[in-house]
Structures are given as structure tokens and as C-alpha cells.
């Protein structure tokens, strides 16, 4: 079956279902809110549709795994910076989860990698948003709406992704200096990660540049930074200026393993104790941030906070899925759509 037929079939199933549970490889099933029970499982089509290396774009079925995508791109000396933690994840699942990879300072967040999306709507239509070119302001940015929407706006069936040349070389180094200082010594580091004791830096580019930058930044060669593992896992998000402070607070707690992305504001947290993850969340919220549950922690809420701009989010959701059938439970939005003038009210009518 060719891809468009498979997409039409997805749209038909989604349109007819009462509750829809879009599933990829299952690697992000515990991210955010819980997947729905007793729902129709829908899987996106698989396969590379078109790839023109000279255009730096690739079109794939959303059910294609990132590993498969990478294999095709590497053969042409290119990559796509989706960078999920587990490369068996599907392209669609990675996009729907919205989780950016650790090379964000150099390649940009996940939302910058998606040029065009096609998705099945709640009422069974196939809708296309964005466009196939790297630059595009033709109408609204529907692709960014889908990134991180956890399947609650539509079921992704096909996407066009931005590609980039593979870096000429990749090198990891480590330093015991303060993480902010290490970062300031590098021009475009791919990753600056700090675990409270050491700062790991991933450099990419021309070999001579990487060597010069490593020397200038006082880095010793090291293996790649390893991200924390554990039964209960989360991702804290704070303003980049607060990430060291949050790291110090986490350091003082027991039973936590964590690595902070310096210059980004993400802290990856893992633990064998659900309570410890909850405590890390409290520390994060105390610094104006929030912690997303990524795995485990059955007793914790997926997001921990009321979603900001709840009324607006609920209106967006209702515009695409008025009955709430798409991935119910994965994004905790207000059940009913609040009226306008519901968020901040102004004083009297000003004189004109």
C-alpha cells in the first residue's frame, strides 16, 4: 500500500473512533499525562517518501523510526537533529512528545526541525500544514502547533524534516571549572552538560577548530556524557540563568542522579524513589520552572503545574478536537472552554 493510501486509512480510522490512542514505538508512552484506556490504537505509516540531499529535506511517514531515518541520511552524509534518547522511537512519536535532544545549543530545539506536517484530524480528514521549503511564512505555523502536542491535535501521518550535513568531527571533553565559564569559552558547543562536579562539552566541526577550542577551553578528552537512568525519570525546565542554582539544590538531595544542560535550562533527573522525583519537581517549581514526568512515577502528575494560558490552550484544543477524543488524558486541559475575557480583566473603559 502506498503512503497516501495508508494515510487515508489512518484518517478513516481516527474519524470513526470514539477515543484515539496514537502509538509509535512506545518509547514516550510515559511522557506527560497517561495514555487513554479502551481507545482505538492508531499507528502512522512507515517509510521514506522522498529525499533530495541537495535540498536538505526528507519526507517520511510519521511511523518511520529515527534509526531508519538516520541510516538513510548518513548514507548521504547528512542527519536530522531529532535526537530522541532511544533511536527506536518513531519520527511522529518524537515530534509529538516535543522533547528536544541534547545538541540543542548548536542544532536548535526539536520544533525547528519540522518543516511540514500532515495529520489526521478528529473528524477524519487529512490536513497539511507548513511547507516543503526551509524558509516559509505562508500562513500559520501548524507544524509548531503539532510539536509537543502529544497526539491531542491530530495524528501525524507524514512529515518533512530539515536535514543538515553531518559534522566533520565530534569530540567530547571534560572540565572541573564552573560550567558557565566553560560554556563562555566555546563558540558553538553542541552540548554543555554539568552534573555538579564536572562539565562535559560536546564540540562539533572542523577537526582543527575542535582541537583549538578544546585547548582554549581547558578541556580534557573524555567519553560522551551519560544521561541519568533510573526507574523514575523527569526533565526539569528552568530559565537558563537558574539552572546552576537548581543543580546545587538537587545536589543537596539524596537518591537523585541529574545532569543539567548549561545554557539551555533543562535538567535531566532520574531516581529509584518516586518521592525523590517529586522533591526535585518541588525544587524546580520553586525556581519558576516545571518538571515533566518522562518515565515511572505512577503517583505523580505528568506536568505538576496547571498549564499556563489554560483558557487559550483549551480553545485551541476544542478547535481541532471538540469532543476530546484524541489522546485523552495526555495533556491536562480544562474540560470546558472558558468564556472570553476570562484571564486578565482590565479596568474601566479608557477615554479615546
Amino acid at each position, binding site marked *: 500500500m502506498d503512503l497516501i493510501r495508508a494515510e487515508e486509512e489512518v484518517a478513516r480510522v481516527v474519524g470513526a473512533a470514539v477515543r484515539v490512542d496514537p502509538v509509535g514505538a512506545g518509547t514516550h508512552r510515559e511522557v506527560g499525562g497517561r495514555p487513554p484506556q479502551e481507545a482505538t490504537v492508531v499507528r502512522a505509516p512507515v517509510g521514506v517518501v522522498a529525499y*533530495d540531499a541537495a*535540498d536538505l529535506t526528507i519526507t517520511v511517514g510519521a511511523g518511520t523510526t529515527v534509526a531508519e531515518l538516520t541510516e538513510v541520511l548518513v548514507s548521504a552524509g547528512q542527519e536530522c537533529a531529532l535526537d530522541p534518547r532511544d533511536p527506536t522511537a518513531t519520527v511522529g512519536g518524537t515530534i509529538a512528545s516535543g*522533547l*528536544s535532544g541534547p545538541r540543542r545549543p548548536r542544532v*536548535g*530545539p526539536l*520544533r*525547528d526541525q519540522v518543516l511540514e506536517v500532515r495529520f489526521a*484530524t478528529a473528524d477524519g480528514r*487529512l*490536513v*497539511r*500544514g507548513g*511547507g*516543503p*521549503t526551509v*524558509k*516559509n*511564512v*505562508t*500562513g*500559520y*505555523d*501548524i507544524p*509548531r*502547533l503539532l510539536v*509537543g502536542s502529544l497526539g491531542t491535535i491530530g495524528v501525524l501521518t507524514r512529515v518533512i524534516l530539515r536535514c543538515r*550535513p553531518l559534522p*566533520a568531527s565530534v569530540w567530547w571533553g571534560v572540565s572541573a571549572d564552573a560550567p*558557565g565559564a566553560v560554556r*563562555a569559552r566555546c*563558540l*558553538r558547543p553542541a552540548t554543555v552538560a554539568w552534573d555538579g562536579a564536572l562539565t562535559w562539552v560536546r564540540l562539533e566541526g*572542523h*577537526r582543527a*577548530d575542535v582541537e*583549538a*577550542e578544546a585547548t582554549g577551553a581547558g578541556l580534557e578528552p573524555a567519553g560522551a556524557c551519560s544521561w541519568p537512568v533510573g526507574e523514575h525519570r523527569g*526533565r526539569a525546565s528552568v*530559565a*537558563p540563568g537558574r539552572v546552576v542554582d537548581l543543580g546545587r539544590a538537587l545536589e543537596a538531595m539524596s537518591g537523585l542522579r541529574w545532569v543539567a544542560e548549561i*545554557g539551555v535550562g533543562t535538567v535531566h533527573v532520574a531516581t529509584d524513589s518516586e518521592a525523590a522525583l517529586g522533591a526535585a519537581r518541588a525544587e524546580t517549581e520553586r525556581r519558576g520552572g516545571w518538571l515533566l514526568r518522562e518515565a515511572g512515577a505512577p503517583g505523580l502528575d505528568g*506536568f505538576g503545574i496547571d498549564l*499556563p*494560558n489554560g483558557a*487559550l*490552550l483549551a*480553545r*485551541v484544543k476544542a*478547535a*481541532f478536537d471538540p469532543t476530546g477524543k484524541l489522546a485523552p488524558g495526555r*495533556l491536562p486541559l480544562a474540560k470546558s472552554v472558558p468564556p*472570553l*475575557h476570562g*484571564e*486578565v480583566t*482590565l479596568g474601566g*473603559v479608557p*477615554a*479615546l
Partner: protein
Amino acid sequence: MLGHARARAEPLELSLYAGDAGHERGQAAVVCFPARGEHVAAAVDVAVRHDRSFVARGSGTGLAGGATPVGRPVLIVTTRLNRIIEVDVDARIAWVEPGVLNLDLSRAIRHLGLHYAPDPSSQAACTIGGNVATNAGGPHCLASGVTATHVLAVDVVLPDATMARLGGLEPDQPGYDLRGCFVGSEGTMGIATRIAVRLTPNPPAVRTLLLDFSSIDDAAATVSGIIAAGVVPAALEMMDAPITRAVEDFVGAGYPRDAAAVLLVELDGLEAGVAAEVEEVSRVGRASGARTVRIAADDAERELLWKGRKSAFGAIARIAPDYYLHDAVVPRTRLVDVLRRVGAVCAEQRLTVLNVFHAGDGNLHPLIAFDAREPGIWARVREAGDEILRACVEAGGVLSGEHGIGLEKRDAMSLVFGPDDLDAQARLRDAFDPAGRANPDKVLPRGSRCGELGPVPPSSAGEGMWI
């Protein structure tokens, strides 16, 4: 809050703000000049309570009519909201008001070794708020991305006059990417009052090259060859023969007057990588038929080469008194086909066309030079423009890369999107603006909402629109 100093309705003011740098004209009921975010909210609130639409305007450098007041709206001019509020050097983030001029921000932070990356050609005059509205680009967006990749958070007045922060300094936001939806929405989802932008460290090494060719095909093959060789330059600009000559006559940048096309290539980063890329670009250029490869020896020569590119629109005045600048994007690999088609279309309409554009990302800017006093010329200019857009779409392209849709291309949206696609966009817009108050006549054609009836008029701007 909005007394005489901040709200004017005299005929002179209304006529001064009748349009942007494009060709559409309209008229506002009143023009407001807010100086604080609350003033913007108050102006929108006035529109809400008087059941009027409102339109936001920065410097008015837009070319698609996005800021043109249609239907006697409240026009809200953001140029007095022009403070750089905060610069965080360590986090490389600045909070600015929407009326800050693009180039003023980069100038203000130059001594910190930072700059704001998006650099539209109008950067000395255009506002960052306007850049956010159109998701503006510029030559240096090839490697560093357009406005959307540099905006972290936007404080906005929503169309119901409430205030909200979309996005944030935290790397991820729970829920939908409302910030991503807002950027590029051309004033149809509200008005920005504060914007947090990402700042970029100045690269230690920068090299600028000028390659000239005896055929456009060779220049285009060089563009593809550079990308295929794994080099993504900071900027990769092309100019065809007519514009190269016009620019050379105008500023004397040292461009070869007999070239069929020139490429301006900028490479930046660290020393060794830039040196290797200079080699690679030179090699690809020569292999593809470049007659000469000139590498700017110093900053003065670099600036001179760029001065030529940036003076392109000024140089047009030497050819004809009026011009119509188009903006469309095609896949890089289709550049030659589409340029040929653009040439043929304009020849058929007996129009002079010049091409100066962002070749690296396939962003074409065919520029038709003409004299508006010539009888019947507008019909030919418009017909050629429509035909060029159709050619771009047929080549797998899109309607706009950086100028936006506004009024100009609203009715061409259905060339690119089907009814269900437009319906989805209308739903997103309506979620932000259920009452249809924010810049209502722009971006989406009438009939975008499924079930919405009625014919699609050619334009709702009314009389005198195309003057």
C-alpha cells in the same frame, strides 16, 4: 490612558498610516501611539468595546499589506514602545519592546560580542515587533534560522484585550507552542508588547566571497554544489545580470558589470573551519564555471561587497521610478527552472525583471521595475506576479519566505493549500481571536472556514488600493 498625544484621528495622520511599503492602501478610524504595554491593551479594549477591528503596525516596512488598515480599524502603532528592557549576557537573551529597530538591537549589544541574527534588508528601519509578525528573515538566516528560531517568549495583548505570556525563558513549555503559533501570524493573533530574543555570539572568523559567472545555470549549480559538499554558509546570495549592473553603477562595489550572475557567499565560525569552507566554496565555484573567485581581503572590502547587495533596492530607482518586489520560495534544486520561467513571464508582459535573492534557501525575490504612469502597466505587473507565484508553487514552492501573506497574497493561499488545510489554519486563528477582531482581512481568504459561504472577492481593500 489614550489621550490626544497617543490617539489621533486627523486626516493627515490617517493618510500617513494608510499603508505599509507595499502597494495596498486603506484608512484607519483612529491611530494610537502606545508607549507602554498597558496602552496597547487599552487600545485593543477600545476596539473590543466599540466592536471594531484593530491592526498593529511597526515601522510600516512590510511589503504584503499586513499593516494596511482595512475596514476603518483602530490602528495601533508600536514605534514608541522602543526600549531595550534587559540584556542578559550570560544567558544571551534580551527583552525588548516591539518598536525597537532590528539594527538598533545589534548595535546596542555589539560591545558585548553579541548580535541579533535575523537581518532583513530593511533592518535599519524595521521593528522587531514587525519581524515577529512576519517571521522575518534576511541573508544571514540561511545558517542561523529566521525570526521564529530566535524568539523565546512574547508578552502579548490577545484580541480580547487580555494579556498573556506565550513561550518563556524555560527551554520547554507545557502545552501547545503558542509562541510558535504567534510568530508569523501577521497581527491576527494579538499584539506583542515585550519580546524575549536569543542573542548570538559574534563569530571570530568571517570571510566573504564574490563569485561571478557567465551563466545563471552555472551560478545555480554552484549553489547546489556548495550545499551538496556539506557546507551551509552563513549567507548565500545571488544577483542576476541586470541587478548586478544596476548596483555597480549605483555604488561601485567592484562587481563585474559583464557577469550573467554573481554569488555573494559568507562563511563564519572558527578559523580552521572557515578556511576549509573558503577552499571548498572556491573549488565548487570553479568546477561549476565561476570566472573569478574574489575573497575579500579585509573588513573594508567585505563591507563594500555587502554594500552592493544591500543597495540593490536603491539602485532600482536608476532603472524605473516604481518597483514590485516579490517573495516566494522554491526547493533549491528548482532555482534554474523557476528563474527561467520568471524571465519568460516578464518578457511576455514586456516588463523589466531583476533578481536579487537568498539563493541558499531558495528564497526568490523577482523585482519588476516599471513606471506606474504608463497606461495599463499595473494589469501587466499583477498578471506577471500571479504567473510567477503559480510557477513557484508548481515547482513545489510556497508563496512567501519572509514577507508574509497580508493582503497581497491572501487570495493566492488556495494555490498552496486545500480547503481542509485552510480550515485548520482558520480554526487555529479563531481559537486566538473568536470575534475576528485582529487584522481580520489578512492572511486567510474568505471561505477558509468549512461551511463559510459566499464568493471570494478579489480584495476587500476597496477603492484606491493599487495606487
